[in-house]
């Protein structure tokens, strides 16, 4: 399958490992990524805070470029922020013709135009889970991640606000299932769709670090060997700021943070270097050594219905199970 | 007041769902344009296609047919018959050069006053855009010894 590919600024540099691993696993899964020609920054959450139209124009330019690059109509964004901005732009333009007209008037200044709805923007996780599917994934696993306890971390934008809804807004499960398909043991991680803090570390360090602490601490409490992310911003906060966080709170947590594409690569038996493993600041070497170890019994997770003889009262089964 | 074309639309409602929806719209003081005038039938199944032709021929610019939702007919399944006749009628009307927008089938349960009101508002706008239906003998209907009705702002 052929997709337009929008790496975004982070994947160029700080999340190069994400880019690398994404491209590395695409091949065995029979996905072809065609990178968008001369794309620009999506504006993150900052641009729209200052100029509405200009921020839409930024994303619209990317969409226009994508249409130019290939007529496939499907654009994959591994970065959740880019994914959100691109979908937001397309949706708003579809819903408001007057806005669309203005945006196109702006694009015209650069000799471009974009017809709302002509690009279907999707997150990499969505594509892998729904186009490739778990069966195909399992088929590709040569080195199952058995023995590895992972905390799946979705962050905000894949779950919310849900301009494109492929998972639950509160307790998403697709990444859990994907990791299970790779053989890893998924720990019950209730904060999986919480916010990583975004730019908070910059504008209010204490708050930002506190938000990071909650996530890392909980993953650690729940017995996770590592946290698996699907977004470069989340990875940056949880990984790069983990040291600062430890110092700030006098903690000594050490929970490595990898991308789900890196986990896939590992399970597919690809070479660690080819997946950019090692570029994380909190080293994952020790954690990854656990792979192959025999898993212990169920960690966390809601308790099963209790036996009759037990004093405990039965409880309803959860509606959604990973 | 500027001279806007005020279409006249005849609405056929069934006694059990859509006529009561119209009552409900009233009870809820929901606003819609005064361009529609309703005729009560027992069931949309009673609607003889010639009623619609007669309406258009006699000066109506559009006709709305409404009844209970499919599966909710007070007479079990008669609205399905209405639906079949509607589709035949539509084809025939297009043959006769009547714009499709002039005849509309709208399902409205007794609880859907708001829905009916908004459907009426929509249709009046569409027919206003289409302009008068210039069938022979038509035209006289709108002509009342009154100034043209003002366009309502639907709530």
């Amino acid at each position, binding site marked *: 399958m052929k997709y337009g590919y929008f790496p975004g600024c982070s994947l160029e540099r700080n999340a190069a490992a994400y880019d690398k691993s994404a491209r590395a696993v695409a091949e065995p899964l029979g996905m072809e990524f065609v990178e968008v020609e001369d794309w620009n920054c999506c504006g993150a959450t900052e641009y729209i805070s200052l100029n509405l139209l200009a921020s839409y124009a930024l994303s619209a330019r990317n969409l226009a470029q994508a249409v130019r690059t290939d007529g496939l109509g499907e654009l994959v964004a591994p970065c959740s922020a880019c994914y959100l901005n691109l979908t937001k732009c397309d949706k708003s333009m579809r819903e408001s013709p007057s806005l669309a007209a203005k945006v196109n008037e702006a694009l015209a200044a650069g000799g471009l135009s974009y017809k709302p709805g002509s690009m279907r923007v999707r997150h990499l996780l969505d594509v892998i889970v729904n186009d490739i599917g778990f069966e195909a994934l399992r088929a590709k696993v040569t080195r199952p991640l058995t023995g590895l306890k992972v905390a799946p971390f979705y962050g905000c934008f894949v779950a919310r606000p849900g301009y494109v809804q492929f998972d639950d807004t509160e307790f998403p499960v697709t990444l859990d299932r994907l990791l299970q398909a790779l053989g890893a043991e998924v720990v019950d991680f*209730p904060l999986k769709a919480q916010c990583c803090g975004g730019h908070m570390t910059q504008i209010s360090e204490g708050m930002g670090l506190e938000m990071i602490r909650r996530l890392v601490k909980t993953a650690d409490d729940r017995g996770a060997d590592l946290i698996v992310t699907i977004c470069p911003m989340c990875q940056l906060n949880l990984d790069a700021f983990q040291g600062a966080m430890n110092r700030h709170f006098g903690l000594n947590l050490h929970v490595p943070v990898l991308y789900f594409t890196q986990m896939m690569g590992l399970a597919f038996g690809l070479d660690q270097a080819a997946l950019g493993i090692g570029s994380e600041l909190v080293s994952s070497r020790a954690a990854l050594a656990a792979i192959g170890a025999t898993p212990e019994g169920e960690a966390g997770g*809601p308790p099963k219905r209790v036996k009759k003889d037990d004093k405990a009262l039965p409880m309803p089964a959860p*509606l959604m199970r990973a | 007041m500027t001279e806007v074309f005020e279409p006249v639309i005849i609405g056929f409602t069934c006694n059990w769902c859509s006529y009561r929806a119209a009552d409900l719209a009233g009870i809820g003081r929901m*606003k819609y344009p005064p361009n529609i005038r309703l005729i009560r039938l027992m069931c949309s199944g009673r609607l003889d296609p010639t009623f619609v032709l007669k309406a258009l021929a006699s000066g109506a610019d559009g006709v709305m047919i409404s009844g209970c939702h499919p599966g909710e007919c007070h007479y079990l399944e008669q609205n399905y018959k209405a639906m079949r006749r509607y589709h035949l009628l539509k084809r025939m009307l297009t043959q006769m050069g009547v714009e499709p927008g002039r005849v509309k089938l709208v399902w409205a349960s007794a609880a859907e006053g708001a829905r009916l009101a908004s459907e009426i508002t929509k249709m009046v706008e569409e027919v206003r855009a289409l302009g008068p239906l210039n069938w022979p003998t038509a035209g006289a209907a709108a002509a009342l010894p009154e100034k043209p*009705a*003002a366009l309502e702002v639907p709530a």
Partner: protein
Amino acid sequence: MTEKIGVYICHCGSNIAGTVDCPEVSRWAAEALKARGVVVARDYKFMCSSLGQELIEKDIKELGLTRVVVGACSPHLHEPTFRGACGRAGLNPYLCEMVSLREQVSWVHTDKAAATAKAKAVVSGGVERVIHHEPLESLRVPIHPATLIVGGGIAGIQAALEIADSGTPVYLVEREPSIGGHMAQFDKTFPTLDCSACILTPKMVTVGAHPNITMLTYAEVTNVDGFVGNFAVTIRQKPRYVKADLCNGCAVCEEKCPKKVVDEVFEAGLGYRKVIYRPFAQAVPKYPVIDRENCTFFLKGTCKACEKFCPTGAIDFEQKEEIITIQVGNIILATGFDLFDARRIPQFGLGRLPNVFSSLEFERLCNAAGPTNGRVVMRDGVTTPRAVGIVHCVGSRDKHYNNYCSSICCMQSLKFAHLVEERTGATVYNFYIDMRTPAKGYDEFYQRLLEEGVIFIRGRVAEVTDVPQRPEEEGRLVVQVEDTLIGQQRRIPLDMVILSAGLEPRHDAKQVAKMFGISCSADGWYIEKHPKLDPIATMTEGIYIAGVAQGPKDIPASVAQGAAAAARVMGRIQQKEIALEPVRASIDETRCSGCRICNNMCPFNAILYHADKAVSEVNPALCQGCGTCVAACPAGAISGTVFSDQQVLSQLEGLLLRNLQPATV
């Protein structure tokens, strides 16, 4: 002959006159429609008042009116009134036509000129139509004295007792093995805190013993035919695998049955029951049922413990389901509600966090006859909570789930708060959006809870979590909420959280409504005939609704509505027969070509074909007057009273004011 028509325009106070220039409309009618036979046109403040009606009667007598047109509210409201007036003055009631100037003109339009113009057209339509009215006699249908009540909850029980006591037969159909409904699951009832079972079970017993009541429990209505006065109802009696005539309710079978399963219905999933069971000790009827899905004998072919130990040999594994058909004149639907499944709001933790309980789970938890004998303990079955949070509006007042207020949750939550406080001494928090305690003695109960020191935090709970942020939160549940009265986010550590889930229409309410020919509101509740003046009847003659099935309400309101529905039915039975609109189709044999197109148009098989004469004929007893055959007849041989082609087409002419042009007159 030309008719003498009287036109009467009602002001309805300012309801119509506020937007329609009524005097102008009647002036216009008298003038413009003179040529069409209008001899008098009047407008009056309230046509429906006795004075207004006298106006019409006087004119009929003095001016010899042969037709009457009243422009007022919806015919669904006052048509009987004005037909009555005509009748009293010696004019056939069906020579009166009512057009709606209120619901369909003044209330929905704002521009006075336009509304007045439309009113004129509507009146003119009425005048043209009435010309073609014929004098008719209303059809009189006998009322079968028996009544069907669907649903054995408190509303159905009340209705059944009222009617049975009046001396006419009642069939009470209940889906579950016992009557009692949700009320039987409760321990206490607000605001008086009297024991639910103590006030309910006597009524249940009376029902069970009542000579005029036939109880059909563990049974469901599968089909309804016919119309008011004479419904034919088909009921499926599920096999109990217990012979009612032999069983003495000793419950030895229950005791001996080796298999336990979680009771998802009566115990709300919080407790267990045997596979042969009565939902609860005071169940009515007293005979148990075997749950086939789980019975070891039905699964593996061995066991039969119940049969071995039954002293009366009442167990019968061979029992088959029975199809019962009954004739009834009226039907009351009291099918109740389903509890909103709070697991649909994952951030509240039900099903994920052990110590989060649904409201029904808690009802069972605090019930003396419940799984813990009324001990309020945490999910482990032993620990007493020190701090308990009660979350209001779960699944209610939320566009994602149910937009409406479930109306009982505030009081229910106050009741829970009191019970928890009383039985555990725990600190109790209520998290509410708005406190709604409108009925008799309710706000006093709120006051009492305030006195008891229950804590109230105004704010809709954002989430319930087991992830600690501060040391004091370790190992506990935490409710995160904005305390909107101080404008701060708070995290309250708790041991137990109770979700006051809202009320929802039964999952199958739509199918049931369809089966009985009534309709559901957008929310899924059964629609009453009039929201204020007739909250008991439905749009369908002979079908009444009572209890929560009509909309969220508490026990006193359900009882009141059950009794009201009963009174209505008893009135009907008293009259012995009911007058129906003579809306019927008839075939003119001379014009019928015998093409038989109409035959399969009729859903009621009211049209029979006489092969000998090669003509079709309508059986007026079966015809319901939908008119589909009238529209279908290629020869125009079928005509429908009250809605004849002529009547409709003339009204059309009138509405389009074609009647004003001499050419077409």
